[in-house]
């Protein structure tokens, strides 16, 4: 891999041992994946935050580093709400270790904002290169916003944050971003059905790049749930939606002849709709997908906000409450800044008995495992809750979840 003089100097330790290690990580990964050079990133989002995951070794490593982030950097959700851990039933020892980890990151100039929706803090622009870790955030940035990021591991995202660069491979390169499989859904779908669709299609797509041919136009929140579930049940890091997501219209002229051969039929080729649909197809039976929903529920926890809720989703919960006070335990997970920015809505939700928790979630918090059955409105949570918390999960719409909470 080609390094500039300055990068070479960092690699040789002329800027101190921390940056040297970080550069070694970037170079090793670049060599493994065949990158030609390093490219600047606009921001980083770093996994490896929960004490449950990285343990004392991870903590010690982060504490041993010195330096300051070269680009804006935030963290992945952690095991608890920094201010409300006691309320969540987290023990003191865990909380202290968790706090130590946050402090170690803060010392490196990384914001202790622990969210899987960093795009609500600062929305990346089309074509921006990023170094993000969390699978649903990666999927959203690539697919919905047209930014470019691979799914970084914790140390490599941290390296990118401190150096301000990442290796140029994978999804940073346009030619690696074309769709590989067409997914056709023949009837209109709404809300939670997008998460359910992702849950069902993910394993069939694997690490491919699907392009969805849908009836109707999904909202950004619906795309968020589709991507989060695709990333959780498969390992999708980029998807396209015909006529909706930003990237399918930018096929370069020199690729057009190639693409033309892969068209489903000649009729699909209409300028200016310069998309193509790969021949490899998945036809989705929504009847089967809907079977994921509406079973016998009887949950003892209703948990919303996976990925972390948007302002619109908070409003939808408030609307569904319609003035009622919840009778069951209800969590809504959001990023701290988004909560602070929408304090009026958050206060209102809390007044109705809902626990709005910051910077953690039902999947990563050890506090979730004391429940028996969780009702969620997210395909991603449906996938992860049983395996990661050892808790049964059922899927419902936001409205059904709130009805159940008020019953």
């Amino acid at each position, binding site marked *: 891999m080609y390094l500039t003089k300055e990068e070479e100097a960092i690699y040789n330790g002329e800027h101190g041992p921390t940056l040297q290690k970080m550069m*070694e990580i970037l170079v*090793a990964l670049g060599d*493994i994946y065949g990158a030609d050079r390093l490219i600047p990133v606009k921001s980083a989002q770093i996994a490896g935050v929960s004490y449950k995951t990285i343990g004392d070794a991870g903590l010690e490593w982060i504490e041993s580093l010195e330096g300051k982030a070269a680009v804006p950097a935030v963290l992945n959700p952690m095991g608890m709400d920094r201010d409300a851990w006691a309320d969540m039933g987290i023990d003191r020892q865990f909380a202290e270790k968790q706090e130590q980890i946050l402090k170690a990151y803060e010392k490196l100039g990384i914001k202790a904002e622990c969210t899987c929706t960093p795009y609500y803090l600062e929305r990346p622009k089309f074509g921006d290169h990023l170094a993000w870790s969390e699978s649903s955030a990666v999927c959203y940035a690539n697919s919905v916003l047209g930014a470019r990021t691979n799914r970084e591991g914790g140390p490599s995202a941290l390296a990118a944050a401190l150096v301000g660069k990442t290796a140029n491979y994978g999804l940073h390169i346009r030619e690696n971003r074309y769709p590989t499989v067409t997914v056709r859904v023949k009837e209109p779908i709404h809300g939670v059905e997008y998460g359910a669709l992702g849950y069902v299609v993910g394993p069939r797509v694997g690490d491919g790049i699907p392009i969805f041919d849908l009836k109707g136009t999904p909202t950004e929140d619906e795309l968020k749930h589709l991507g989060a579930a695709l990333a959780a049940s498969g390992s999708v890091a980029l998807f396209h939606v015909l006529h909706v997501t930003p990237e399918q219209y930018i096929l370069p002229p020199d690729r057009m002849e190639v693409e033309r051969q892969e068209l489903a039929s000649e009729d699909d080729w209409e300028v200016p709709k310069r998309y193509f649909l790969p021949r490899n197809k998945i036809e989705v039976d929504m009847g089967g997908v809907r079977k994921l929903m509406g079973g016998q529920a009887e949950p003892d926890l209703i948990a919303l906000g996976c990925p972390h809720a948007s302002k619109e989703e908070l409003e939808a919960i408030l609307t569904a409450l319609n003035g009622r006070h919840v009778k069951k335990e209800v969590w809504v997970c959001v990023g701290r800044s988004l909560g602070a920015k929408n304090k009026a809505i958050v206060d209102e939700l809390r007044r109705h008995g809902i626990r709005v928790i910051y910077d953690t979630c039902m999947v990563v918090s050890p506090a979730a495992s004391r429940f028996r059955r969780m009702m969620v409105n997210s395909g991603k949570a449906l996938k992860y809750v049983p395996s990661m918390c050892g808790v049964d999960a059922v899927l419902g719409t936001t409205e059904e979840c709130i009805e159940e909470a008020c019953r």
Partner: protein
Amino acid sequence: MIYKGRTISKGRAMGLALVSKDPISFLGGVDPKTGDVIERGHALYGKNVKGKVLVFPGGKGSTVGSYVMYQLKKNGVAPAAIVNVRSEPIVAVGAIISGIPMVDSLSVNPVEAIKDGMAVTVDGTSGTVEV
């Protein structure tokens, strides 16, 4: 005999070879306190990695494995050096953050060319392995 390979993690170390035909997951595969290989059915099950030049095809399993390697180093039971057939990110990153010299992509298959107990010197900086 000196084999030329590729630098993954810099530094130089020597030790006796411990060769595995199976990939290694450090998370759940190696006890971070003792360096014992604890994955049942693994080619190295029951052996210890401490001070060895660990030769194996590549990593597998969870990315947390990188931190387990760091823990091994802190506990003084890490391998002295690592030689992989094809390196992948988990072990590569683990070796770098732990300061364990590591080389991959040799001109020969190291899992076949190197035998258990051979004295091996790994120079991660120049990307060479001397047997």
